[in-house]
């Protein structure tokens, strides 16, 4: 680490403000709970790394007792650093964001209990240990901005305005679920008011969609931020490259949060890509990239906020690599025995909610008792949501094959305004093509 260059922290721009999509007031730039920002280092390729610690180990496969398994190389005993103080989040916002993280976690705990009672149809995907990343990144979006979640970003959908019952009903295949039981889990969205692109299973496919949303909005004179997530595994796909390269070359405001949670199903990152930091990809795309600690909601929020503001200024796309750990297995069927135990122990001590609680207490923003009350209040809320979701009816057979096509009699309005172009020769008439075309 001694060879790393130290960079001065980026000063908060005076006009920067963050607005919660849920309508909390715009806040002025804030110096966080503690004054002063710890220095930001750079990785060997010059990518800013906001983390306050480096991962001191990696995974290798080993041959022993006639079997292959994964082992840890390095030391996992390092103490947990504090959160990096946020440049932008004040007390109220931090507490609101913290609550979303608790909602995220307790909703998934409820889902796990519903799964065990056979109320969930199919499998269940969880984001334990990843709540800071889902929630804080989405918290940086305005109402007009778009979200492109992946299967584990159920928390981000709550930040964007959905209630936990939506995800619960989706998992139960209920008729009142956002997709009327047609698709499962976090596979739902809303193009009209909440601006959430429904995830599809095919990893990476949403990124080009988000680029297109930004393109459509820009044609209508509006620079929106379109924030999407992709996993350390999902980023290996072709559509990830095509979609993000298109966003980069067109300077579209796509904010790609690469969730480096160390595993893709059973595959460790060591078998997924050859570089050390996925944020390095930003150099190839020609966009800014940054590395953050995915268990530190402040880092995630600040990086997302800066990328979202950049998108709003029409300056284009950004990559944020968040490093952390998938603390549950891929899905409920998977006992994840392939993960060395020490990896989980290391990250368990870096629990994003516990770290945020510590931060809030040290800042004097919440007492132990207030935190306990918030957990209890969220627990009651989740129980109510669960009751509503469980009571909802199953779909009728008539919903299986309807809505395959949309009605042509309905006009689909533009979302942001009249289409405008800068330079165009409006009086030009179409003349017959004289140039030679491909093939005779």
């Amino acid at each position: 680490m001694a060879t790393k260059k130290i960079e001065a922290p980026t000063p908060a721009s005076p006009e920067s403000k963050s607005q919660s999509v849920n309508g909390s007031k715009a806040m002025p730039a804030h110096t966080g709970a503690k004054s002063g920002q710890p220095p930001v280092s750079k990785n060997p390729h010059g990518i800013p790394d906001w983390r306050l610690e480096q991962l001191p180990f990696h995974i290798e496969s080993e041959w022993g007792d006639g079997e292959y398994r994964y082992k840890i190389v390095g030391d996992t005993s390092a103490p947990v650093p504090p959160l990096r103080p946020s440049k932008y989040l004040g007390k109220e916002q931090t507490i609101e964001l913290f609550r979303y993280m608790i909602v995220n976690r307790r909703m998934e705990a409820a889902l796990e209990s519903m799964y065990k009672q056979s109320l969930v149809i199919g499998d269940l995907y969880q984001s334990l240990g990843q709540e800071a990343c889902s929630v804080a990144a989405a918290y940086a979006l305005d109402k007009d901005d778009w979200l492109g979640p992946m299967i584990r970003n159920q928390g981000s959908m709550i930040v964007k305005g959905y209630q936990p019952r939506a995800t619960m009903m989706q998992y139960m295949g209920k008729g009142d679920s956002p997709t009327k039981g047609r698709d499962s889990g976090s596979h739902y969205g809303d193009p009209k008011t909440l601006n959430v692109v429904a995830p599809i299973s095919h990893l990476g496919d949403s990124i080009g969609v988000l680029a297109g949303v930004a393109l459509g909005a820009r044609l209508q004179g509006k620079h929106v931020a379109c924030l999407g997530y992709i996993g350390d595994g999902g980023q290996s796909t072709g559509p990830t490259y095509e979609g993000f390269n298109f966003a980069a070359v067109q300077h579209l405001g796509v904010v790609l949060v690469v969730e480096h949670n160390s595993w893709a199903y059973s595959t460790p990152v060591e078998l997924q890509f050859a570089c050390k930091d996925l944020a390095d990809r930003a150099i190839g795309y020609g966009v800014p990239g940054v590395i953050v600690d995915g268990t530190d909601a402040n880092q995630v929020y600040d990086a997302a906020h800066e990328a979202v503001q950049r998108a709003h200024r029409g300056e284009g796309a950004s990559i944020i690599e968040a490093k952390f750990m998938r603390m549950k297995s891929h899905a409920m069927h998977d006992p994840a025995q392939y993960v060395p135990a020490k990896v989980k122990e290391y990250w368990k001590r870096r629990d994003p909610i516990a770290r945020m609680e510590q931060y809030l207490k040290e800042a004097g923003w919440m007492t132990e008792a207030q935190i306990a009350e918030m957990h209890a209040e969220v627990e009651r809320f989740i129980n109510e949501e669960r009751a509503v979701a469980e009571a909802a009816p199953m779909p009728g057979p008539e919903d299986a094959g309807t809505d395959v096509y949309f009605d042509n009699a309905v006009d689909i309005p533009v979302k942001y305004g009249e289409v405008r172009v800068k330079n165009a020769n409006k009086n030009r008439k179409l003349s017959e093509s004289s140039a030679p075309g491909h093939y005779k």
Partner: protein
Amino acid sequence: MATVTYLEAIRQAIWEEMERDSRVFVMGEDVGVYGGAFKVTEGFIHKFGKERVVDTPISEMAIASAAYGASLTGMRPVGEFQFMDFISSAHSQIVQILAKSNWRWGAPAPLVLRGPSGGGVSGGPFHSQNPEMFYVHTPGLKVIAPATARDAKGLMKSAIRDNNPVLFFEHKFLYRRVKEELPLEDYTVEIGKARVHREGRHLSVITYASMVYVAQEAADILQKEGIELEILDLRTLLPLDRDAIRATVEKTNRTIVLHEDTKTGGIAGEIAAIINEEAFDSLDAPIVRITAMDAPVPFSPPLEKAFLPKVEDVVREARHLLKY
């Protein structure tokens, strides 16, 4: 009335729709200053601006998914694939994202993906294919393959005005070979309606795109023998016009299904099944399929000629069927 080619008809349709509706814009490879590999968008960038004539990287997945993303904001994109062969690079985006969109999450996707398909120009195995059946097999899409300039223009306008994802397979062999008088005023052709290209009493040839002209040549030859072919041009492959298929079979009682696409899994099988369901009692003879070989499209002219369905095939099978 003015005489225009199939290619000009498509150019006019997109141009006029872009003039009429500012939500319409085009995107694709080389579509801007160059005007596209086949010149469909020649001059468009100067008229409509670079924001509405978007040159993309060589990224079919991005063309399909970004066109879709833009459609979510109420835009009506027309994406070009330089050759329809390259639609396979965007297959996942089309069948997974676009086709399921309205059904799955109530997000209508008013967009058109278009480009040149088909053989007869020695384009070889990667520039001559007819990949339409992958998409006819995908609920949620509409699939169009016109044969005439009039239909190309009217159907393109309908496709752009449609609130669903429409795949528009132009036929590159017809681009500059087909010339017709077209009305000067604005008109559309309804999606999902077949057209009787030629009336006849003895035998129906159900076909589409460039094979309409193969059927027509065969009909001219058979006419001299007193055999009247009825040619039904499907025009839209999804949704298929079941009524028109039934009507022609009920009229002639004998059917050839002719297409340039390969045989196994081609639309002829589907049409035979529809006839079985809708007009079985009207048949006086078995349904005959005339199609390309079950092989990739070859490059060299003698090979491509052997591969494609020919006028002689239609004449021979028609004579045979009439004796049945």
